[in-house]
């Protein structure tokens, strides 16, 4: 409306409004003198004026709800109404026994029965009973009601009060907090350990039932008059936490945690796992054992407290205890056990209550504890498994410790002679490291936790660099960067960040912001940020590195290639597959120009390109690149190497996607063997192999093998990552798929639900990875006849996949095919028809000819036509489907049988309708 004169519009409208309605048109016509835009504006405005008669005349309608809500909020803020003598459920509230940020706890009684029954009722005053909350609340209740353990206060019931507040009825426990109990009863360390083990048993039980406490602290761990422990509020803070997003005014309760017992991931508001509970218990145990906690948190601001939790490594309990004679008892094993529970990274802590329990039992029996062993193996394994820079960086540390000899000539980022170098040095490093960890080594007399010492060594190295090399900037920068890489390799991310950032600052100062040295450190920082999954941050670093490099060396230099390749990986990690491919291809052409195509690095890049193409559905190119990389690796490495196993796995995946299941099986089994040779039978890498094999066998029709591998996978992830992990969610999903194939629909549905629940705990609601569990649940719900929910779920899948992969990606075709089938079953034929129409273009344009998915699509179209009495069309669809299936499957495949049955049905129907 840019050139419209609004004043004129208003003037004419004002005048027109004065006229009787029948005269207005002529009046406007005359005033506008052929200015169609002006006329249109005036006419529509007048129409709207008459249509909107009465609208907005009663503002109260709009305001009432908001006042209502303000009133509710105010009510929540106010000190609370008196609930004593109020009836809740079948209980009468007697007295208030506690008050928290979220609400109050009351003692209530039911005296209607012959015997009196006392319960605790918690009324949650935070947040409204919104739709989401009520649904969650119902779900949580079911879980909590299933939690029956003598060490856990029993949950009885839950509901919503008359004024809309959720409440929980639970066992009333008459006891004192565990710390107070220990102080009062003056029990010795061994008795404390016994008591604490009971706590761990209760927590283990809850974790096994997939309930995490999230707020364990002495106040929630009571000991009753019989000396038995009872844990309160299991699973309840989770219920509250999600509601706190809803609350509009109370900031006070927005972050529900007790700082003293909060794990780093809680402070950072990251994923909560079983390890989070075990951290809190670690602190509780520390306090019980040492008499005070690991940190001095008195008189600290909330910010300082958070920093301490995130940054400060806890002192050994033996070093902090003031209890006479206690230090010797704690020194060694108990120090190690407690510190293991308090590691900053959840994955380095005890992940299962069982592990913690075992270590305490071992300690009691004088056996070695896991916290003292295995960690070196784990670390060393990680050291050597990591990419070249990691190993090179370790060499840097080695040289540093030996005395900085001969380092001048050597640059860590050079990959020349990489493999030979790695092999030679690895042995040296291993020996050196082992000697460091030998307990008889007098230098290590003060050493109490192996893995801690590795860290300490690196940190000491960092200090040494600071002290001794500050006047030799080139060495200084080089060493800081190496140590940063090494720290990152052993997951000391905060320290790694410090070292790399320092290196960056010094390099900018010494070499200048636009130097190739600075650019290299920026690349390191990008790689480091990939490790910690900070992809946007990584992107900033690599873009800066690229800008510097192209300023110095121009747009087509040799050194640019590595950086472009990192940038490509970054884009891949951020799901920008098209951009990633484009960048990989750029790196490829640079490498070709500069003759750098005979290195492992080049082929890693090619394989990454292949994987990107796999995601883009460009299967032929992907295969070419994988094969090229695999050929190179098999010639290059003398024995099994992770690059070989990984590429075989990728080829397996590719053939699976292309429905070439026999080939997929071959590659996957080879890859599985390779990984087992490299890392043993208990390695997370095997999980993907098992899962892929299960799916492949399912499609080969070998359902027993499929189920077998799916179970192996579930066992593995449960053991390695716990049953609340995202990895386990993936395994459950896979297992459910196999159960569905075997016709166990209910079991499949339950596992899918469970899996989706876990996924949702780990992922944001718009995360593209949610598409898969949603699709599978939709699928089984369709089979179970729950079409509405099934359709809702598949709708979200289509949205997610379109956004992630583009509207014409093969995956979207598969989604749409399912959606059409659901709509057909639900009897919404017209909708189904248009969904299939959208799918058609994808199936015919994007899938390889005669792909079985096209057959499935034809079957679904056939069914729709059959239901609509279009017998001829239906028969045609089924015939085409059978033709395609015949090229893919053996005669006895259920798809063929099914399509044949449909064909027969439609032909019979055609005959009988012709006869009528």
């Amino acid at each position, binding site marked *: 409306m840019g050139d419209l004169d609004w004043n004129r519009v208003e003037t004419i409208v*004002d005048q027109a409004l004065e006229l009787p309605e029948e005269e207005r048109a002529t009046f406007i016509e005359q005033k506008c003198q052929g200015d169609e835009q002006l006329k249109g504006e005036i006419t529509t405005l007048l129409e709207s*004026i008459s249509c909107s008669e009465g609208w907005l005349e009663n*503002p*109260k309608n*709009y305001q009432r709800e908001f006042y209502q809500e303000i009133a509710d909020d105010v009510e929540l803020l106010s000190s609370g109404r008196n609930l004593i003598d109020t009836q809740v459920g079948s209980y009468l509230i007697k007295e208030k026994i506690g008050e928290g940020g979220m609400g109050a706890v009351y003692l209530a009684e039911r005296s209607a029965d012959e015997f009196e029954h006392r319960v605790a009722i918690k009324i949650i005053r935070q947040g409204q009973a919104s739709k989401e909350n009520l649904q969650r609340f119902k779900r949580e209740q079911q879980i909590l009601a299933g939690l029956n353990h003598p060490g856990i206060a029993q949950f009885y019931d839950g509901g919503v009060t008359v004024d809309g507040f959720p409440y929980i009825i639970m066992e009333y426990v008459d006891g004192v907090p565990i710390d107070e109990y220990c102080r009062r009863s003056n029990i010795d360390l061994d008795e404390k350990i016994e008591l604490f083990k009971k706590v761990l048993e209760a927590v283990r039980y809850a974790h096994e039932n997939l309930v995490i406490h999230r707020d364990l602290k002495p106040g929630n761990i009571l000991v009753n008059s019989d000396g038995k422990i009872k844990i309160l509020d299991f699973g309840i803070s989770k219920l509250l936490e999600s509601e706190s997003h809803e609350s509009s005014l109370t900031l006070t309760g927005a972050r529900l945690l007790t700082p003293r017992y909060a794990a780093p991931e809680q402070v950072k508001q990251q994923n909560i796992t079983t390890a989070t509970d075990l951290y809190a218990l670690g602190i509780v145990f520390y306090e019980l054992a040492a008499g005070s906690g690991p940190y001095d948190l008195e008189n600290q601001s909330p910010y300082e407290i958070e920093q301490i939790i995130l940054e400060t490594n806890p002192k050994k309990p033996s070093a902090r205890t003031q209890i006479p004679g206690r230090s010797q008892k704690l020194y060694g094993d108990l120090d190690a056990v407690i510190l293991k529970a308090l590691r900053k990274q959840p994955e380095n802590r005890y992940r299962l209550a069982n592990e913690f329990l075992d270590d305490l039992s071992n300690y009691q029996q004088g056996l070695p504890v896991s916290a003292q062993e295995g960690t070196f193996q784990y670390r060393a394994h990680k050291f050597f498994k990591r990419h070249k820079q990691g190993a090179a960086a370790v060499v840097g540390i080695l040289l540093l410790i030996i005395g900085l000899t001969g380092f001048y000539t050597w640059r860590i980022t050079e990959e020349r002679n990489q493999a030979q170098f790695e092999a030679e040095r690895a042995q040296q490093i291993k020996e050196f490291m082992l000697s460091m960890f030998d307990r008889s080594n007098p230098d290590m007399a003060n050493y109490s936790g192996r893995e801690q010492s590795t860290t300490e060594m690196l940190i000491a190295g960092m200090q040494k660099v600071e002290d001794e090399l500050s006047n030799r900037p080139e060495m200084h920068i080089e060493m800081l960067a190496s140590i940063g890489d090494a720290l990152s390799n052993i997951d000391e991310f905060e320290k790694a960040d410090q070292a790399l950032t320092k290196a960056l600052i010094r390099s900018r100062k010494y070499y200048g912001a636009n130097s190739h040295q600075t650019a290299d450190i920026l690349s390191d920082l990008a790689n480091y940020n990939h490790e910690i999954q900070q992809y946007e941050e990584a992107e900033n670093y690599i873009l800066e590195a690229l800008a510097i490099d192209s300023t110095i060396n121009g747009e087509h230099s040799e050194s640019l290639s590595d950086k472009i390749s990192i940038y490509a990986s970054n884009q891949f990690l951020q799901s920008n597959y098209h951009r990633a491919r484009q960048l990989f291809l750029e790196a490829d052409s640079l490498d070709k120009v500069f003759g750098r195509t005979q290195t492992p690095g080049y082929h890693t890049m090619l394989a990454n390109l292949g994987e990107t193409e796999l995601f883009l559905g460009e299967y032929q190119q992907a295969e070419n690149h994988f094969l090229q990389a695999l050929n190179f690796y098999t010639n290059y490495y003398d024995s099994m190497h992770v690059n070989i196993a990984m590429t075989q796995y990728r080829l397996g995946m590719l053939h699976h996607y292309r429905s070439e299941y026999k080939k997929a099986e071959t590659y996957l089994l080879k890859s599985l063997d390779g990984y087992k040779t490299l890392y043993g039978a208990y390695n997370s890498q095997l999980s993907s192999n098992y899962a892929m094999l299960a799916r492949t066998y399912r499609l080969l029709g070998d359902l027993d093998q499929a189920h077998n591998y799916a179970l192996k996978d579930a066992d593995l992830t449960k053991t390695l990552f716990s049953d609340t992990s995202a990895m386990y969610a993936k395994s459950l999903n896979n297992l459910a798929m196999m159960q569905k194939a075997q016709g166990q629909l209910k079991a499949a549905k339950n596992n899918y639900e469970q899996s989706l629940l876990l996924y949702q705990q780990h992922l944001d609601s718009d995360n593209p990875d949610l598409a898969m569990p949603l699709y599978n649940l939709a699928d089984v719900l369709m089979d179970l006849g729950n079409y509405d929910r099934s359709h809702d779920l598949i709708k979200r899948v289509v949205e997610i996949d379109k956004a992630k992969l583009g509207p014409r990606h093969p995956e979207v075709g598969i989604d749409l095919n399912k959606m059409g089938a659901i709509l057909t079953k639900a009897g919404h034929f017209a909708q189904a028809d248009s969904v299939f129409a959208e799918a058609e273009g994808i199936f015919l344009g994007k899938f390889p000819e005669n792909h079985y998915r096209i057959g499935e699509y034809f079957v679904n179209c056939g069914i729709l036509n059959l239901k609509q009495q279009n017998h001829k069309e239906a028969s045609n669809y089924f015939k085409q489907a059978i033709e395609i299936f015949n090229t893919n499957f053996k005669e006895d495949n259920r798809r063929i049988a099914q399509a044949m049955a449909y064909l027969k049905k439609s032909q019979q129907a055609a005959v009988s309708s012709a006869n009528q």
Partner: protein
Amino acid sequence: MDKPGVTQLLLRLKDGEEGVYDQLYPLVYKELKGLAYAQMSHQSPDHTLSRTELVHEAYLKMIDQTRIDFNDKSHFFAIASRCMRQILIDYARKKNADKRGGSEKDVTYIDQLFHAQKEKSRELVGIDEALDKLSELNERLVKVVEMKFFGNMTIDQTASALGVSSSTVKRDWIKARGWLYRELKGRFEIK
């Protein structure tokens, strides 16, 4: 700020002094919001305090009656209307943000209630955005909507605050209403 101070500001506003509005606005906003919360806490949930009462109360609290005549009161009400627009819209926006992300599953009676509420708050946010657009065409139309719709002011009070005739206010109101309706229909189920 004390009562004489606020009264003084209001008088200066009437005289058309620059910058006074910006001083007065946050004071009235704060007072109104505080009053709303304070008052609500004594109300039973089903009793709704009328907005006119609220503004009136703020007025009594903030302004020295003996120094102000009816016309000046309109100026105060005009500011209060603007404040009420902001208070309500902030609320509506937050409400929308809070409710976003819920999945559409089995629809129950409760769900429908929430749905209806959400519609109203969305509509309010829509009105607010449309008003910003309208202010580029004719600022006065926006003021009329603020006073009449958000501030519950009468036609006469509005006319007095704006220094125009009552019939102009009526015409402005009709045009603004029509214009908003045209902007928003199709986006909301109006009426």
